[in-house]
Protein backbone atom coordinates (compact mmCIF):
# COMPACT_ATOMS: atom_id res chain seq x y z
CA UNK A 1 0.00 0.00 0.00
CA UNK A 2 2.71 2.46 0.97
CA UNK A 3 5.91 3.23 -0.90
CA UNK A 4 8.63 0.62 -0.85
CA UNK A 5 11.08 3.42 -0.06
CA UNK A 6 9.64 3.93 3.41
CA UNK A 7 9.30 0.29 4.40
CA UNK A 8 12.73 0.30 6.03
CA UNK A 9 12.27 3.64 7.71
CA UNK A 10 11.61 3.67 11.44
CA UNK A 11 10.64 6.29 13.94
CA UNK A 12 13.87 7.39 15.59
CA UNK A 13 14.81 5.06 18.48
CA UNK A 14 15.39 8.16 20.58
CA UNK A 15 11.76 9.16 20.15
CA UNK A 16 10.66 5.55 20.72
CA UNK A 17 12.39 5.42 24.08
CA UNK A 18 11.04 8.87 25.01
CA UNK A 19 7.55 7.66 24.11
CA UNK A 20 7.99 4.53 26.21
CA UNK A 21 9.33 6.61 29.11
CA UNK A 22 6.34 8.94 28.94
CA UNK A 23 4.09 5.97 29.71
CA UNK A 24 6.00 4.98 32.85
CA UNK A 25 5.02 7.04 35.88
CA UNK A 26 7.89 8.71 37.73
CA UNK A 27 10.41 7.84 35.02
CA UNK A 28 13.42 10.06 34.51
CA UNK A 29 14.89 10.62 31.08
CA UNK A 30 18.43 11.33 29.98
CA UNK A 31 17.49 10.23 26.47
CA UNK A 32 16.52 12.92 23.98
CA UNK A 33 18.97 15.80 23.46
CA UNK A 34 16.70 18.56 24.66
CA UNK A 35 18.25 21.52 26.49
CA UNK A 36 16.69 22.04 29.91
CA UNK A 37 16.62 25.81 29.36
CA UNK A 38 13.87 27.97 27.98
CA UNK A 39 14.58 30.17 24.95
CA UNK A 40 16.33 33.37 26.16
CA UNK A 41 14.06 36.31 27.01
CA UNK A 42 15.74 38.63 24.51
CA UNK A 43 14.76 36.27 21.69
CA UNK A 44 11.18 35.95 22.90
CA UNK A 45 10.84 39.73 23.25
CA UNK A 46 12.17 40.26 19.76
CA UNK A 47 9.68 37.76 18.35
CA UNK A 48 6.75 39.27 20.25
CA UNK A 49 7.61 42.68 18.80
CA UNK A 50 7.56 41.25 15.28
CA UNK A 51 4.27 39.46 15.90
CA UNK A 52 2.68 42.66 17.19
CA UNK A 53 4.01 44.58 14.18
CA UNK A 54 2.31 42.08 11.88
CA UNK A 55 5.50 40.87 10.21
CA UNK A 56 5.25 37.13 10.71
CA UNK A 57 2.03 36.16 9.04
CA UNK A 58 3.25 35.91 5.45
CA UNK A 59 5.73 33.64 3.68
CA UNK A 60 9.28 34.88 3.40
CA UNK A 61 11.36 34.29 0.31
CA UNK A 62 12.15 30.58 -0.05
CA UNK A 63 15.77 30.88 1.18
CA UNK A 64 14.68 32.98 4.17
CA UNK A 65 14.28 36.60 5.17
CA UNK A 66 16.91 38.95 3.87
CA UNK A 67 17.71 40.31 7.33
CA UNK A 68 18.37 36.87 8.75
CA UNK A 69 20.48 35.67 5.84
CA UNK A 70 22.54 38.83 6.01
CA UNK A 71 23.03 38.38 9.75
CA UNK A 72 24.04 34.74 9.19
CA UNK A 73 26.54 35.77 6.50
CA UNK A 74 28.13 38.26 8.87
CA UNK A 75 28.25 35.72 11.67
CA UNK A 76 29.92 33.25 9.30
CA UNK A 77 32.43 35.88 8.12
CA UNK A 78 33.41 36.58 11.73
CA UNK A 79 34.31 32.88 11.90
CA UNK A 80 36.34 32.79 8.71
CA UNK A 81 33.59 31.57 6.34
CA UNK A 82 32.68 33.81 3.43
CA UNK A 83 29.32 33.13 1.84
CA UNK A 84 26.98 35.35 -0.16
CA UNK A 85 23.73 35.86 1.72
CA UNK A 86 21.79 36.22 -1.53
CA UNK A 87 22.80 32.96 -3.18
CA UNK A 88 24.69 30.76 -0.73
CA UNK A 89 22.55 30.48 2.40
CA UNK A 90 19.18 28.80 2.98
CA UNK A 91 17.30 29.14 6.25
CA UNK A 92 15.79 25.75 7.02
CA UNK A 93 13.24 24.21 9.38
CA UNK A 94 15.95 22.91 11.74
CA UNK A 95 19.06 21.03 10.72
CA UNK A 96 17.27 17.85 9.66
CA UNK A 97 15.21 19.59 6.96
CA UNK A 98 18.40 21.10 5.58
CA UNK A 99 20.09 17.70 5.61
CA UNK A 100 17.11 15.99 3.98
CA UNK A 101 16.78 18.66 1.29
CA UNK A 102 20.51 18.37 0.59
CA UNK A 103 20.41 14.57 0.35
CA UNK A 104 17.30 14.66 -1.85
CA UNK A 105 19.08 17.03 -4.22
CA UNK A 106 22.27 14.93 -4.34
CA UNK A 107 21.15 11.30 -4.42
CA UNK A 108 19.91 9.09 -7.19
CA UNK A 109 18.17 5.83 -6.28
CA UNK A 110 20.72 3.48 -4.71
CA UNK A 111 23.46 6.07 -4.22
CA UNK A 112 25.49 5.51 -1.09
CA UNK A 113 26.31 7.93 1.70
CA UNK A 114 29.10 7.19 4.15
CA UNK A 115 28.23 7.64 7.80
CA UNK A 116 30.78 7.36 10.59
CA UNK A 117 29.52 4.93 13.20
CA UNK A 118 28.34 5.83 15.77
CA UNK A 119 26.61 8.96 14.53
CA UNK A 120 23.32 10.82 14.87
CA UNK A 121 20.53 8.33 14.42
CA UNK A 122 18.21 10.26 12.05
CA UNK A 123 20.81 10.51 9.27
CA UNK A 124 20.05 6.94 8.22
CA UNK A 125 16.38 7.71 7.69
CA UNK A 126 17.10 10.98 5.87
CA UNK A 127 19.31 9.07 3.44
CA UNK A 128 16.77 6.30 2.90
CA UNK A 129 13.90 8.70 2.33
CA UNK A 130 16.02 10.37 -0.34
CA UNK A 131 16.45 7.02 -2.11
CA UNK A 132 19.98 6.49 -0.83
CA UNK A 133 21.74 3.76 1.09
CA UNK A 134 23.54 4.52 4.36
CA UNK A 135 26.94 2.85 4.62
CA UNK A 136 28.46 2.80 8.07
CA UNK A 137 32.18 3.30 8.55
CA UNK A 138 33.47 2.45 12.02
CA UNK A 139 35.04 5.14 14.17
CA UNK A 140 37.89 4.10 16.43
CA UNK A 141 36.77 4.07 20.05
CA UNK A 142 40.30 3.73 21.37
CA UNK A 143 41.29 6.90 19.51
CA UNK A 144 38.56 8.97 21.09
CA UNK A 145 36.18 7.84 18.39
CA UNK A 146 38.34 9.31 15.62
CA UNK A 147 38.07 8.60 11.87
CA UNK A 148 39.56 5.46 10.38
CA UNK A 149 40.57 6.55 6.89
CA UNK A 150 41.47 3.09 5.67
CA UNK A 151 37.95 1.99 6.51
CA UNK A 152 36.53 5.07 4.80
CA UNK A 153 38.48 4.45 1.61
CA UNK A 154 37.54 0.79 1.62
CA UNK A 155 33.86 1.68 1.91
CA UNK A 156 33.88 3.93 -1.16
CA UNK A 157 32.29 2.41 -4.27
CA UNK A 158 31.11 3.66 -7.66
CA UNK A 159 27.81 4.47 -5.95
CA UNK A 160 29.25 6.62 -3.16
CA UNK A 161 28.07 10.18 -3.44
CA UNK A 162 28.68 11.86 -0.09
CA UNK A 163 30.01 11.70 3.44
CA UNK A 164 27.67 12.90 6.17
CA UNK A 165 29.01 13.50 9.66
CA UNK A 166 28.44 15.67 12.67
CA UNK A 167 31.23 17.63 14.24
CA UNK A 168 31.27 17.69 17.24
CA UNK A 169 29.95 14.18 17.06
CA UNK A 170 26.69 13.10 18.57
CA UNK A 171 26.71 10.73 20.54
CA UNK A 172 30.43 10.63 21.39
CA UNK A 173 31.20 14.34 21.90
CA UNK A 174 34.29 13.93 19.71
CA UNK A 175 35.74 17.03 18.05
CA UNK A 176 37.54 15.94 14.91
CA UNK A 177 41.04 17.37 14.65
CA UNK A 178 42.23 19.67 11.85
CA UNK A 179 44.34 16.80 10.48
CA UNK A 180 41.39 14.41 10.47
CA UNK A 181 39.17 16.94 8.71
CA UNK A 182 41.85 17.67 6.17
CA UNK A 183 42.28 13.97 5.42
CA UNK A 184 38.54 13.56 5.09
CA UNK A 185 38.36 16.47 2.62
CA UNK A 186 41.24 15.03 0.60
CA UNK A 187 39.44 11.71 0.43
CA UNK A 188 36.28 13.48 -0.72
CA UNK A 189 38.24 15.32 -3.36
CA UNK A 190 39.97 12.15 -4.56
CA UNK A 191 36.66 10.35 -5.08
CA UNK A 192 34.59 13.42 -6.00
CA UNK A 193 32.26 13.21 -3.00
CA UNK A 194 30.20 15.88 -1.28
CA UNK A 195 30.79 16.44 2.42
CA UNK A 196 27.83 17.31 4.65
CA UNK A 197 29.11 18.76 7.90
CA UNK A 198 26.45 19.04 10.61
CA UNK A 199 27.76 21.37 13.32
CA UNK A 200 24.86 21.89 15.69
CA UNK A 201 26.96 21.33 18.83
CA UNK A 202 29.83 23.65 17.88
CA UNK A 203 28.95 26.13 20.64
CA UNK A 204 29.41 23.61 23.44
CA UNK A 205 33.10 22.78 23.37
CA UNK A 206 34.90 22.23 26.67
CA UNK A 207 38.53 22.10 25.53
CA UNK A 208 40.85 24.93 24.50
CA UNK A 209 41.47 23.47 21.06
CA UNK A 210 40.29 25.95 18.41
CA UNK A 211 37.24 24.70 16.58
CA UNK A 212 37.73 24.20 12.86
CA UNK A 213 35.33 23.45 10.04
CA UNK A 214 35.96 22.49 6.44
CA UNK A 215 33.72 25.40 5.41
CA UNK A 216 36.62 27.69 6.40
CA UNK A 217 38.75 26.17 3.63
CA UNK A 218 38.08 27.97 0.33
CA UNK A 219 39.38 25.01 -1.64
CA UNK A 220 36.42 22.87 -0.58
CA UNK A 221 33.60 25.39 -0.82
CA UNK A 222 31.95 23.60 -3.77
CA UNK A 223 32.18 20.27 -1.99
CA UNK A 224 31.22 21.10 1.58
CA UNK A 225 27.65 21.77 2.68
CA UNK A 226 27.64 23.02 6.26
CA UNK A 227 24.58 22.67 8.44
CA UNK A 228 23.74 24.58 11.60
CA UNK A 229 20.71 24.69 13.85
CA UNK A 230 19.61 27.24 16.44
CA UNK A 231 17.99 24.43 18.47
CA UNK A 232 20.83 23.47 20.75
CA UNK A 233 22.94 26.62 21.01
CA UNK A 234 20.02 28.91 21.82
CA UNK A 235 17.64 26.45 23.50
CA UNK A 236 15.24 26.72 20.57
CA UNK A 237 14.44 23.09 19.71
CA UNK A 238 10.72 23.85 19.37
CA UNK A 239 11.21 26.74 16.97
CA UNK A 240 12.60 24.46 14.24
CA UNK A 241 15.03 26.79 12.57
CA UNK A 242 18.54 26.36 11.20
CA UNK A 243 20.48 27.01 8.03
CA UNK A 244 22.75 25.48 5.44
CA UNK A 245 25.41 27.15 3.35
CA UNK A 246 27.66 26.21 0.47
CA UNK A 247 28.75 27.48 -2.91
CA UNK A 248 25.99 29.15 -4.97
CA UNK A 249 26.06 26.32 -7.55
CA UNK A 250 25.22 23.78 -4.82
CA UNK A 251 22.69 25.91 -2.97
CA UNK A 252 20.72 26.64 -6.16
CA UNK A 253 19.94 22.91 -6.49
CA UNK A 254 19.11 22.37 -2.81
CA UNK A 255 16.80 25.39 -2.87
CA UNK A 256 14.51 23.62 -5.34
CA UNK A 257 13.94 20.80 -2.86
CA UNK A 258 13.67 23.11 0.15
CA UNK A 259 11.05 25.21 -1.65
CA UNK A 260 9.11 22.07 -2.58
CA UNK A 261 9.23 20.65 0.94
CA UNK A 262 8.39 23.63 3.12
CA UNK A 263 8.17 26.81 0.94
CA UNK A 264 10.15 28.65 3.62
CA UNK A 265 11.17 28.19 7.24
CA UNK A 266 8.51 29.49 9.65
CA UNK A 267 8.85 33.28 9.55
CA UNK A 268 8.21 33.67 13.27
CA UNK A 269 11.14 31.32 13.90
CA UNK A 270 13.31 33.22 11.45
CA UNK A 271 12.82 36.33 13.58
CA UNK A 272 13.70 34.25 16.64
CA UNK A 273 16.91 33.19 14.90
CA UNK A 274 17.67 36.82 14.10
CA UNK A 275 17.12 37.72 17.74
CA UNK A 276 19.45 34.89 18.71
CA UNK A 277 22.27 36.13 16.51
CA UNK A 278 21.78 39.73 17.62
CA UNK A 279 21.23 39.43 21.34
CA UNK A 280 21.76 35.99 22.80
CA UNK A 281 25.51 35.37 22.79
CA UNK A 282 25.70 35.80 26.57
CA UNK A 283 23.00 33.18 26.98
CA UNK A 284 24.98 30.71 24.88
CA UNK A 285 27.99 31.29 27.15
CA UNK A 286 25.78 30.75 30.20
CA UNK A 287 24.38 27.49 28.77
CA UNK A 288 27.88 26.25 28.00
CA UNK A 289 29.08 26.95 31.53
CA UNK A 290 26.10 25.07 32.95
CA UNK A 291 26.61 22.09 30.64
CA UNK A 292 30.27 21.99 31.59
CA UNK A 293 29.24 21.78 35.25
CA UNK A 294 26.67 19.08 34.51
CA UNK A 295 29.24 17.11 32.51
CA UNK A 296 31.44 17.09 35.62
CA UNK A 297 28.54 15.90 37.79
CA UNK A 298 27.55 13.11 35.40
CA UNK A 299 31.15 11.97 34.89
CA UNK A 300 31.79 11.92 38.64
CA UNK A 301 28.66 9.86 39.15
CA UNK A 302 29.76 7.47 36.37
CA UNK A 303 33.13 7.13 38.10
CA UNK A 304 31.24 5.49 40.95
CA UNK A 305 29.55 3.02 38.59
CA UNK A 306 32.56 1.45 36.95
CA UNK A 307 31.18 -2.07 37.20
CA UNK A 308 28.21 -0.91 35.12
CA UNK A 309 29.81 1.56 32.71
CA UNK A 310 33.17 2.77 31.43
CA UNK A 311 33.31 6.03 29.52
CA UNK A 312 35.39 8.72 27.84
CA UNK A 313 34.91 12.30 29.00
CA UNK A 314 33.25 14.07 26.04
CA UNK A 315 35.07 17.13 24.69
CA UNK A 316 31.85 18.65 23.44
CA UNK A 317 28.05 18.41 23.05
CA UNK A 318 25.93 17.37 26.04
CA UNK A 319 26.21 13.61 25.78
CA UNK A 320 28.28 10.89 27.41
CA UNK A 321 28.45 7.60 25.52
CA UNK A 322 29.49 4.94 28.05
CA UNK A 323 30.24 1.32 27.29
CA UNK A 324 28.07 -1.20 29.12
CA UNK A 325 30.34 -3.34 31.29
CA UNK A 326 27.79 -5.89 32.48
CA UNK A 327 26.50 -8.90 30.57
CA UNK A 328 23.70 -7.98 28.17
CA UNK A 329 22.46 -9.16 24.79
CA UNK A 330 21.78 -5.88 23.01
CA UNK A 331 21.99 -2.25 24.05
CA UNK A 332 18.33 -1.96 22.97
CA UNK A 333 17.23 -4.61 25.48
CA UNK A 334 19.57 -3.22 28.11
CA UNK A 335 18.06 0.28 27.73
CA UNK A 336 14.50 -1.04 27.88
CA UNK A 337 15.35 -3.19 30.91
CA UNK A 338 16.61 -0.07 32.69
CA UNK A 339 13.44 1.75 31.75
CA UNK A 340 11.20 -1.06 32.99
CA UNK A 341 13.09 -1.84 36.19
CA UNK A 342 14.23 1.57 37.43
CA UNK A 343 12.41 4.04 35.19
CA UNK A 344 15.56 5.54 33.66
CA UNK A 345 15.47 6.32 29.94
CA UNK A 346 18.78 6.16 28.07
CA UNK A 347 19.27 5.78 24.33
CA UNK A 348 20.58 2.36 23.21
CA UNK A 349 23.91 2.76 21.43
CA UNK A 350 22.79 0.64 18.48
CA UNK A 351 20.55 3.57 17.46
CA UNK A 352 23.69 5.37 16.33
CA UNK A 353 25.07 2.61 14.12
CA UNK A 354 26.69 -0.82 14.53
CA UNK A 355 29.67 0.51 16.51
CA UNK A 356 27.27 2.01 19.01
CA UNK A 357 26.19 -1.48 20.10
CA UNK A 358 27.29 -2.20 23.65
CA UNK A 359 26.89 1.45 24.67
CA UNK A 360 24.18 3.83 25.82
CA UNK A 361 23.86 7.58 25.34
CA UNK A 362 23.22 9.77 28.38
CA UNK A 363 22.29 13.44 28.00
CA UNK A 364 23.47 16.11 30.41
CA UNK A 365 21.30 18.61 28.60
CA UNK A 366 18.75 17.73 31.29
CA UNK A 367 18.86 19.53 34.63
CA UNK A 368 20.98 18.49 37.61
CA UNK A 369 18.07 17.00 39.53
CA UNK A 370 17.28 14.62 36.65
CA UNK A 371 20.93 13.68 36.25
CA UNK A 372 21.32 12.93 39.94
CA UNK A 373 18.02 11.06 40.18
CA UNK A 374 18.91 8.89 37.17
CA UNK A 375 22.35 8.18 38.62
CA UNK A 376 20.92 7.33 42.06
CA UNK A 377 18.65 4.77 40.43
CA UNK A 378 21.47 3.38 38.28
CA UNK A 379 23.70 2.97 41.35
CA UNK A 380 20.98 1.07 43.18
CA UNK A 381 20.42 -1.09 40.11
CA UNK A 382 24.15 -1.78 39.92
CA UNK A 383 24.10 -3.10 43.49
CA UNK A 384 21.44 -5.65 42.57
CA UNK A 385 23.59 -7.19 39.82
Amino acid at each position, binding site marked *: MFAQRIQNIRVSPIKQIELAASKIPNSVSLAQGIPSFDTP*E*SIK*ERVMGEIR*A*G*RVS*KYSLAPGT*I*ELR*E*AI*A*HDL*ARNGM*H*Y*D*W*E*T*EIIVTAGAIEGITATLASLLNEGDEVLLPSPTYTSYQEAIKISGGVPVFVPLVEDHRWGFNFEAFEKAITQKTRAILFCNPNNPTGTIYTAEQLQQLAELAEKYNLYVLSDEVYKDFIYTDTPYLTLAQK*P*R*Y*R*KRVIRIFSFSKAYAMTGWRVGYIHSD*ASVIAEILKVHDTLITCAPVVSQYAA*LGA*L*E*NAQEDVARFKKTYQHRRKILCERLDGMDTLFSYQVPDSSYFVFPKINVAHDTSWNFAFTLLEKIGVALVPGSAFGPEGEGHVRMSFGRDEADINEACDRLEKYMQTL
Partner: protein
Amino acid sequence: MSFLKRSVQYCLFAIAKLSLAHHEPYVVVVSGSTNRQTVKEAIGKKLGEAFTVRVSPKNFNAELGVPMSIVDIPSGGGSFLGWFSVLIRALRYAIGGKREDVCIAEFAVSRPRDMRYLLRLLRPDCVVLTDLTSEYLSAFGTLETKAKEYEDLLMRIKANGLAVLNQDDARICALHAGVSVVKTTYGLAGDALYRANHITSNEHGTSFYVHAPGLPVQHAHIISFGKSAIYAYLAAEAVATHATTHWKKT
Protein backbone atom coordinates in the same frame (compact mmCIF):
# COMPACT_ATOMS: atom_id res chain seq x y z
CA MET B 1 4.91 50.71 24.37
CA SER B 2 5.86 50.29 28.02
CA PHE B 3 6.60 53.28 30.24
CA LEU B 4 10.16 51.99 30.72
CA LYS B 5 10.81 51.73 26.99
CA ARG B 6 9.29 55.16 26.33
CA SER B 7 11.39 56.77 29.05
CA VAL B 8 14.58 55.04 27.94
CA GLN B 9 13.94 55.99 24.33
CA TYR B 10 13.41 59.64 25.27
CA CYS B 11 16.58 59.86 27.41
CA LEU B 12 18.67 57.94 24.94
CA PHE B 13 17.58 60.11 22.07
CA ALA B 14 18.56 63.26 23.97
CA ILE B 15 21.94 61.83 25.00
CA ALA B 16 22.75 60.67 21.46
CA LYS B 17 21.88 64.13 20.11
CA LEU B 18 24.10 65.71 22.74
CA SER B 19 26.93 63.34 21.81
CA LEU B 20 26.71 64.19 18.11
CA ALA B 21 26.64 67.93 18.84
CA HIS B 22 29.60 67.64 21.20
CA HIS B 23 31.88 65.41 19.11
CA GLU B 24 30.77 66.46 15.60
CA PRO B 25 31.74 63.26 13.78
CA TYR B 26 31.42 62.79 10.03
CA VAL B 27 28.10 60.95 9.89
CA VAL B 28 27.32 58.30 7.29
CA VAL B 29 23.83 56.81 7.16
CA VAL B 30 23.30 53.55 5.32
CA SER B 31 19.71 52.79 4.41
CA GLY B 32 17.63 50.83 1.90
CA SER B 33 15.79 47.54 1.92
CA THR B 34 18.68 45.07 1.86
CA ASN B 35 22.46 44.75 2.15
CA ARG B 36 22.76 47.53 4.76
CA GLN B 37 24.98 45.56 7.10
CA THR B 38 27.43 44.51 4.40
CA VAL B 39 27.68 48.08 3.09
CA LYS B 40 28.05 49.48 6.59
CA GLU B 41 30.93 47.16 7.41
CA ALA B 42 32.67 47.76 4.08
CA ILE B 43 32.52 51.52 4.66
CA GLY B 44 33.81 51.06 8.20
CA LYS B 45 36.74 49.02 6.92
CA LYS B 46 37.59 51.49 4.18
CA LEU B 47 37.31 54.64 6.31
CA GLY B 48 39.19 52.87 9.08
CA GLU B 49 42.31 53.21 6.92
CA ALA B 50 42.29 56.99 7.48
CA PHE B 51 39.97 57.70 10.41
CA THR B 52 38.81 56.33 13.70
CA VAL B 53 35.39 54.88 12.99
CA ARG B 54 32.32 53.80 14.95
CA VAL B 55 30.14 51.38 13.01
CA SER B 56 26.73 50.59 14.43
CA PRO B 57 26.77 46.96 15.50
CA LYS B 58 24.49 44.17 14.27
CA ASN B 59 20.98 45.36 13.41
CA PHE B 60 21.01 48.48 15.58
CA ASN B 61 18.91 50.34 13.06
CA ALA B 62 15.64 51.60 14.58
CA GLU B 63 14.33 53.99 17.23
CA LEU B 64 16.33 52.44 20.11
CA GLY B 65 19.17 50.82 18.20
CA VAL B 66 20.36 53.93 16.34
CA PRO B 67 20.91 56.13 19.43
CA MET B 68 22.40 53.13 21.27
CA SER B 69 24.92 52.65 18.50
CA ILE B 70 25.83 56.36 18.50
CA VAL B 71 26.70 56.38 22.21
CA ASP B 72 28.19 52.90 22.22
CA ILE B 73 25.96 51.08 24.68
CA PRO B 74 24.47 47.60 24.77
CA SER B 75 20.84 46.87 25.62
CA GLY B 76 19.85 47.34 29.25
CA GLY B 77 17.48 44.37 28.99
CA GLY B 78 14.05 44.49 30.57
CA SER B 79 14.98 46.08 33.90
CA PHE B 80 15.00 49.68 35.08
CA LEU B 81 18.38 49.19 36.81
CA GLY B 82 19.90 47.68 33.67
CA TRP B 83 18.85 50.66 31.58
CA PHE B 84 19.79 53.18 34.28
CA SER B 85 23.34 51.84 34.26
CA VAL B 86 23.66 51.94 30.46
CA LEU B 87 22.20 55.44 30.29
CA ILE B 88 24.89 56.64 32.72
CA ARG B 89 27.45 55.00 30.47
CA ALA B 90 25.87 56.71 27.45
CA LEU B 91 26.07 60.10 29.15
CA ARG B 92 29.75 59.54 29.95
CA TYR B 93 30.35 58.74 26.30
CA ALA B 94 28.45 61.82 25.15
CA ILE B 95 30.23 64.36 27.33
CA GLY B 96 33.60 62.63 27.52
CA GLY B 97 36.82 63.40 25.63
CA LYS B 98 37.53 62.82 21.97
CA ARG B 99 35.55 60.06 20.26
CA GLU B 100 35.65 58.49 16.81
CA ASP B 101 36.07 60.73 13.74
CA VAL B 102 33.36 58.92 11.82
CA CYS B 103 30.01 57.55 12.91
CA ILE B 104 28.34 55.05 10.58
CA ALA B 105 24.67 54.50 11.36
CA GLU B 106 22.14 52.16 9.80
CA PHE B 107 18.57 53.37 9.33
CA ALA B 108 15.79 50.86 8.75
CA VAL B 109 12.18 51.77 8.14
CA SER B 110 9.30 49.41 8.72
CA ARG B 111 6.43 51.92 9.05
CA PRO B 112 5.58 55.30 7.51
CA ARG B 113 7.33 58.20 9.28
CA ASP B 114 10.02 55.95 10.84
CA MET B 115 12.58 57.94 8.87
CA ARG B 116 11.32 61.30 10.11
CA TYR B 117 11.73 60.12 13.67
CA LEU B 118 15.32 58.97 13.08
CA LEU B 119 16.13 62.20 11.25
CA ARG B 120 15.26 64.24 14.32
CA LEU B 121 18.42 62.74 15.75
CA LEU B 122 20.96 63.78 13.14
CA ARG B 123 21.77 65.31 9.76
CA PRO B 124 24.04 63.05 7.76
CA ASP B 125 27.16 64.15 5.89
CA CYS B 126 26.71 61.23 3.58
CA VAL B 127 23.85 58.84 2.79
CA VAL B 128 24.18 55.50 1.05
CA LEU B 129 21.03 53.95 -0.36
CA THR B 130 21.25 50.28 -1.28
CA ASP B 131 17.95 49.37 -2.91
CA LEU B 132 14.21 49.66 -2.58
CA THR B 133 12.25 46.41 -2.45
CA SER B 134 8.85 45.33 -1.26
CA GLU B 135 10.23 44.16 2.12
CA TYR B 136 7.77 45.33 4.85
CA LEU B 137 5.65 46.87 2.11
CA SER B 138 2.35 45.99 3.78
CA ALA B 139 2.92 48.69 6.39
CA PHE B 140 3.46 51.30 3.66
CA GLY B 141 0.77 50.27 1.22
CA THR B 142 2.73 51.23 -1.89
CA LEU B 143 6.34 51.45 -2.95
CA GLU B 144 5.83 55.19 -3.53
CA THR B 145 4.98 55.69 0.15
CA LYS B 146 8.05 53.73 1.11
CA ALA B 147 10.19 55.66 -1.36
CA LYS B 148 9.04 58.87 0.35
CA GLU B 149 10.90 57.75 3.48
CA TYR B 150 14.17 57.63 1.56
CA GLU B 151 13.48 60.99 -0.07
CA ASP B 152 13.11 62.44 3.42
CA LEU B 153 16.52 61.04 4.25
CA LEU B 154 18.14 62.51 1.14
CA MET B 155 16.64 65.92 1.87
CA ARG B 156 18.24 66.02 5.30
CA ILE B 157 21.81 65.60 4.00
CA LYS B 158 24.02 68.52 5.04
CA ALA B 159 24.68 71.28 2.51
CA ASN B 160 28.09 70.00 1.44
CA GLY B 161 27.07 66.37 1.84
CA LEU B 162 26.73 63.53 -0.62
CA ALA B 163 24.12 60.97 -1.64
CA VAL B 164 25.57 57.65 -2.78
CA LEU B 165 22.94 55.82 -4.80
CA ASN B 166 22.75 52.36 -6.29
CA GLN B 167 22.55 52.95 -10.02
CA ASP B 168 21.34 49.39 -10.64
CA ASP B 169 18.13 50.02 -8.72
CA ALA B 170 15.84 52.11 -10.87
CA ARG B 171 13.65 53.13 -7.94
CA ILE B 172 16.62 54.41 -5.95
CA CYS B 173 17.85 56.44 -8.90
CA ALA B 174 14.38 57.89 -9.42
CA LEU B 175 14.38 59.20 -5.84
CA HIS B 176 16.96 61.77 -6.70
CA ALA B 177 14.72 63.53 -9.19
CA GLY B 178 12.84 65.58 -6.60
CA VAL B 179 15.73 66.16 -4.23
CA SER B 180 18.41 68.79 -4.57
CA VAL B 181 21.58 67.20 -3.27
CA VAL B 182 24.98 66.31 -4.69
CA LYS B 183 24.92 62.68 -5.69
CA THR B 184 27.17 59.97 -6.94
CA THR B 185 26.24 56.51 -8.10
CA TYR B 186 27.64 53.02 -7.82
CA GLY B 187 26.77 49.73 -9.49
CA LEU B 188 27.54 47.32 -12.24
CA ALA B 189 25.64 49.28 -14.88
CA GLY B 190 27.67 51.11 -17.49
CA ASP B 191 26.53 54.54 -16.37
CA ALA B 192 27.37 54.20 -12.67
CA LEU B 193 30.13 56.59 -11.56
CA TYR B 194 31.69 54.00 -9.27
CA ARG B 195 31.47 50.87 -11.35
CA ALA B 196 32.80 47.32 -11.31
CA ASN B 197 33.32 45.17 -14.38
CA HIS B 198 35.21 42.08 -15.51
CA ILE B 199 33.98 40.30 -12.40
CA THR B 200 35.42 36.86 -11.79
CA SER B 201 35.35 34.63 -8.77
CA ASN B 202 37.14 31.56 -7.58
CA GLU B 203 37.25 29.75 -4.26
CA HIS B 204 39.34 32.54 -2.75
CA GLY B 205 36.89 35.34 -3.44
CA THR B 206 35.88 37.84 -6.11
CA SER B 207 38.05 39.94 -8.40
CA PHE B 208 36.96 42.90 -10.50
CA TYR B 209 38.04 46.21 -11.97
CA VAL B 210 36.91 49.42 -10.34
CA HIS B 211 36.16 52.55 -12.35
CA ALA B 212 35.90 55.73 -10.28
CA PRO B 213 35.67 59.39 -11.31
CA GLY B 214 39.09 60.98 -11.74
CA LEU B 215 40.98 57.84 -10.82
CA PRO B 216 42.78 55.23 -12.91
CA VAL B 217 41.05 51.88 -13.24
CA GLN B 218 42.04 49.66 -10.35
CA HIS B 219 42.01 45.92 -9.83
CA ALA B 220 40.28 44.81 -6.64
CA HIS B 221 40.02 41.47 -4.86
CA ILE B 222 37.71 40.74 -1.95
CA ILE B 223 37.39 37.51 0.00
CA SER B 224 33.60 37.75 -0.16
CA PHE B 225 31.19 36.49 -2.79
CA GLY B 226 28.15 37.84 -4.58
CA LYS B 227 26.91 41.11 -6.03
CA SER B 228 26.07 42.48 -2.60
CA ALA B 229 29.74 42.40 -1.61
CA ILE B 230 30.76 44.25 -4.79
CA TYR B 231 28.10 46.91 -4.19
CA ALA B 232 29.42 47.33 -0.67
CA TYR B 233 32.96 47.74 -1.95
CA LEU B 234 31.94 50.39 -4.50
CA ALA B 235 29.78 52.32 -2.03
CA ALA B 236 32.70 52.36 0.42
CA GLU B 237 35.01 53.77 -2.26
CA ALA B 238 32.53 56.57 -2.97
CA VAL B 239 32.07 57.44 0.70
CA ALA B 240 35.82 57.39 1.31
CA THR B 241 36.44 59.87 -1.51
CA HIS B 242 33.91 62.27 -0.04
CA ALA B 243 35.01 61.82 3.57
CA THR B 244 38.67 62.47 2.86
CA THR B 245 37.93 65.64 0.89
CA HIS B 246 35.16 67.04 3.08
CA TRP B 247 36.17 66.12 6.57
CA LYS B 248 39.63 66.63 7.96
CA LYS B 249 40.85 64.42 10.74
CA THR B 250 41.39 66.55 13.83
